[in-house]
């Protein structure tokens, strides 16, 4: 483990290894023989042993500062209790905040829904189309007589076409069918207005409400 003895005296490292029992057996025997004869090295060995004894004597408890235990309590024992107390104290405010949040969410959703309906331009429901078509039907019926300006066959044909268009609006299974039915209705109304002498109006956007 340690280099052979080249100096007449033991090096400090060799003395360290000697007291630590780290020398190989032959080196240990040689060092012991040298220490028996050399008062200088024996004195250094005594000095080292005194130092080791002093160091070992250092292994004594040291009075900790008074603040250590309160610090330990604060970061161990008191911490879970403090956490529980904070959570308990925050429970009511947190519940109130949650309720308020839910309430605001519902109110906002309802308001957005109504705003959306209003924001779509107040498109009349299908009932408005049906009522308007009924007025056209009445107007056609009023002209259904023998000496009127329009033949009775033509009026009957227009009324039947209008009824079919109305029926298409009422029975539309989806938005796509509704759009098609409304377009057909606009075409029929244009024919009726031409017969009744009313000017055709521009088509309106269909509504999704029924």
């Amino acid at each position, binding site marked *: 483990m340690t280099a052979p003895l080249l100096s007449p005296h033991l090096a400090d490292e060799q003395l360290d290894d000697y007291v630590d029992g780290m020398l190989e057996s032959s080196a240990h025997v040689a060092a012991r023989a040298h220490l028996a004869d050399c008062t200088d090295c024996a004195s250094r060995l005594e000095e080292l042993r005194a130092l080791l004894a002093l*160091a070992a004597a*250092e292994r004594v*408890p*040291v009075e*900790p500062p008074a603040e250590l235990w309160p610090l*330990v309590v604060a970061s161990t024992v008191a911490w*879970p*209790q403090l956490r529980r107390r904070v959570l308990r104290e925050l429970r009511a405010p947190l519940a109130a905040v949650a309720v308020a949040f839910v309430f605001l969410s519902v109110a906002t959703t309802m308001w957005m829904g109504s705003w959306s309906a209003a924001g779509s331009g107040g498109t009349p429901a299908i009932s408005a189309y049906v009522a308007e078509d009924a007025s056209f039907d009445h107007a056609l019926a009023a002209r259904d007589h023998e000496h009127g300006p329009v033949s009775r066959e033509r009026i009957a044909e227009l009324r039947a076409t209008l009824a079919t268009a109305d029926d298409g609006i009422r029975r539309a299974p989806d938005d796509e069918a509704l759009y098609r039915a409304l377009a057909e209705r606009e075409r029929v109304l244009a024919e009726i207005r031409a017969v009744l002498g009313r000017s055709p109006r521009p088509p309106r956007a269909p509504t999704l409400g029924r």
Partner: protein
Amino acid sequence: VVAAITGSHAAAGRAARLERLYHSHAGRVFGICLRMTGDRVRATELAQDVFVRAWEKLDLLRDETNAGAWLGRVATNVVLNARRAERRRWARVEPVDDLAPLAPVSLHTPLPVRRMDLATAMDRLPERARVVYVLHDVEGYSHNEIASMLGIASGTVRAQLHRARRLMRETLRA
């Protein structure tokens, strides 16, 4: 006090156990931290960490007759871990290797004086040498145990120990 602070019976029992450990071994724990760091403020912080660690692992300690050795090991690990973290933080700071001479010490010097000078000399050792010296010559760990704790070779531990002892001898001879 602890029972008053804590709420449940089980928590009070656990807290009382920690208090018992503290009053039995705080001096040893603080001593290890102080000798390894050479700084009372730092040693107080580290001793606090030691008891926090002990609190977390309290259930692992079945036999309290071994609590002293167990806490000693925890303290050593806490100090070494803190030292590693600080060394990474202060990687560019060069250690101070020179030691200012102390009052000469002989076997005839009264023991309290010798111990005071020894503690002062240990505080002045370069950090790595002091850690190895304290772990070996004061705390009594073997070369291999220290090598394992520090993550270095056993030969490096011996070299640091030789260096620390040489510096200690030179200081105390001066």
